């Protein structure tokens, strides 16, 4: 274990990520209940910090309260990282999180000010996903596992697992943007359906690569299985949410089932995106490609903790011979 691991900081980062997930739930509830304009002023609600929490005001003001809490948590995290974190790139990521949460607040104001213009609403929803992924990444980077010596595996296949994982992150993010655009009436459903097919294909390819190339790498296998489960559930949720939405079209009051299905589908999308980010980070941390090793002289040297220069730079190392796709420890 590396001395840089700070349990309190890690717990704080994990708590921030969980609070951010709850913020996503609160935001999705605002959209599904069409409560985004239940409070016409900003940042106060009806000129007060505590307006009557009835109907749509409960969702909109509740969202603002949770957002304020997460904003304060993020300030605390960024400051804590500045003071106690030795890795410069992690400190910088903390500042990026802080910038993102400030930008998110400004976008929230613009949605109220300009009466939910689709471009701003979609930007607000998309930045929320990015911010959530940053908090998840910070929770991982401050964790014991990331800063410990971990077994390495060698990737001899093509495309690289890292490439597949990054493609899955990008495709899932775009899929969430298209979902937000559909939800905020900027686009129709077609781009979202195409996006679902692309994400599914990439997840299948990544899962297949992990199963064939790294049969003994338990962590990778688990990450792949988790991602498959998330995507499969998300597809079912998407179909259910769509059916429910079509069935309730024209109704004066949106049924609770439609509201909750769309909320769960939205936040599950965030979990899928976070899952792809986790996979990309795990792949980055434990998988080495044959080409990299040749460039480095044919020996593995990636078993230590990344300190000081960047997520790919490792302070300590153990020289291991090249393997043939099996886990090495």
């Amino acid at each position: 274990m590396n001395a840089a691991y700070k349990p309190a900081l890690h717990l704080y980062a994990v708590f921030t990520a969980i609070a951010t997930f709850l913020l996503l739930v609160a935001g999705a509830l605002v959209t599904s209940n069409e409560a985004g304009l239940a409070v016409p002023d900003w940042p106060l609600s009806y000129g007060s910090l505590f307006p009557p929490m009835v109907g749509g005001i409960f969702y909109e003001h509740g969202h603002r309260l949770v957002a304020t809490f997460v904003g304060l948590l993020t300030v605390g995290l960024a400051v804590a990282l500045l003071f106690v974190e030795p890795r410069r790139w992690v400190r910088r990521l903390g500042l990026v999180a802080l910038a993102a949460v400030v930008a998110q607040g400004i976008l929230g104001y613009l949605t109220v000010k300009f009466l939910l213009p689709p471009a701003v609403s979609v930007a607000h929803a998309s930045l929320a996903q990015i911010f959530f992924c940053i908090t998840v990444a910070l929770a991982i980077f401050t964790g014991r596992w990331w800063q410990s010596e971990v077994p390495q595996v060698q990737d001899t296949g093509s495309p690289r697992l890292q490439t597949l994982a990054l493609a899955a992150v990008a495709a899932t993010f775009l899929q969430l943007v298209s979902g937000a655009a559909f939800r905020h009436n900027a686009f129709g459903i077609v781009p979202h359906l195409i996006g679902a097919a692309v994400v599914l294909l990439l997840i299948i390819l990544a899962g297949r690569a992990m199963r064939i190339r790294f049969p003994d790498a338990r962590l990778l296998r688990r990450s792949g299985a988790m991602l498959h489960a998330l995507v499969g559930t998300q597809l079912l949720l998407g179909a259910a949410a769509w059916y429910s939405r079509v069935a309730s079209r024209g109704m004066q009051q949106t049924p609770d089932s439609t509201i909750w299905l769309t909320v769960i589908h939205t936040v599950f999308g965030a979990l899928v995106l976070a899952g792809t980010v986790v996979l990309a980070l795990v792949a980055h941390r434990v998988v080495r490609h044959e080409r990299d090793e040749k460039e480095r002289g044919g020996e593995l040297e990636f078993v230590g903790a990344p300190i000081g220069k960047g997520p790919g730079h490792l302070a300590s190392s153990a020289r291991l011979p090249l393997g043939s796709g099996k886990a090495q420890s």
Partner: protein
Amino acid sequence: MRFRLSFACMALACAVVLGGCGKKEKEDEGAAAPANAPAATPVDSASAGSVSGTVKFEGAAPKPARLKTEADPYCAKMHTSAPLTSEEAVVGAGGALANVVVYVKTGLENRTFETSKNAVELNQEGCEYKPHVIAVQTNQPVTIINSDDTTHNIHPTPANNPDWNKSQGPKAEKITQSFAREEIAIPVKCNIHGWMKSYIAVFKHPYFKVTGKDGTFDLQNLPAGDYTLGAWHEKYGKSEQKVTVGAKEAKKVDFVFKAS
């Protein structure tokens, strides 16, 4: 270099977002009432005709859904004895369909009409809009009343007119608004009470009616000519019929809607 690229991306994103907002502002400016509206074309009442009729629903009348008002204790209390029900399809005796806007769709293009100065009221009472559907002329005042002891917000979501969103406290002062462009029909909602929905149809001319529970309509003082009559319902969509009205002629036209 990387910093410059990031900065350029952020600037581009800001420009896109603010550009979108700016467009909305311009639309708002464009919706102002015309300063020099052309003089109204006179209608000779002595030779004018009329069109009347009934709008009916064919098939089994849909059962109104119970609306859940528990999100606001005040609203729930208002409906403890008689629960609030949806008005998306109100079918009366003999299949008469209420809340249908019947209007002249074509045939009046060469005429202009004076805007009525009589305000049409839209009341928020018992946590529902009364009436559920109203129709007005362009720039005709719409007076919004809150008779409830709870706050409402009035948020029309038009396609051709500017958006606005105003809150109105318990029994607060009336709000008067108007719409500068023709639009059939503008959805109006209360974002605090998600079940509260209403529609405002806006016409350039005065030949329109909203059917009541008896499903009838009556368009009086219509100049002789060939017309297309339109009928709009929030759930069952649109229907239209051709009609020729002679001088002093009283035509009968009926519309029938079916569940889609």
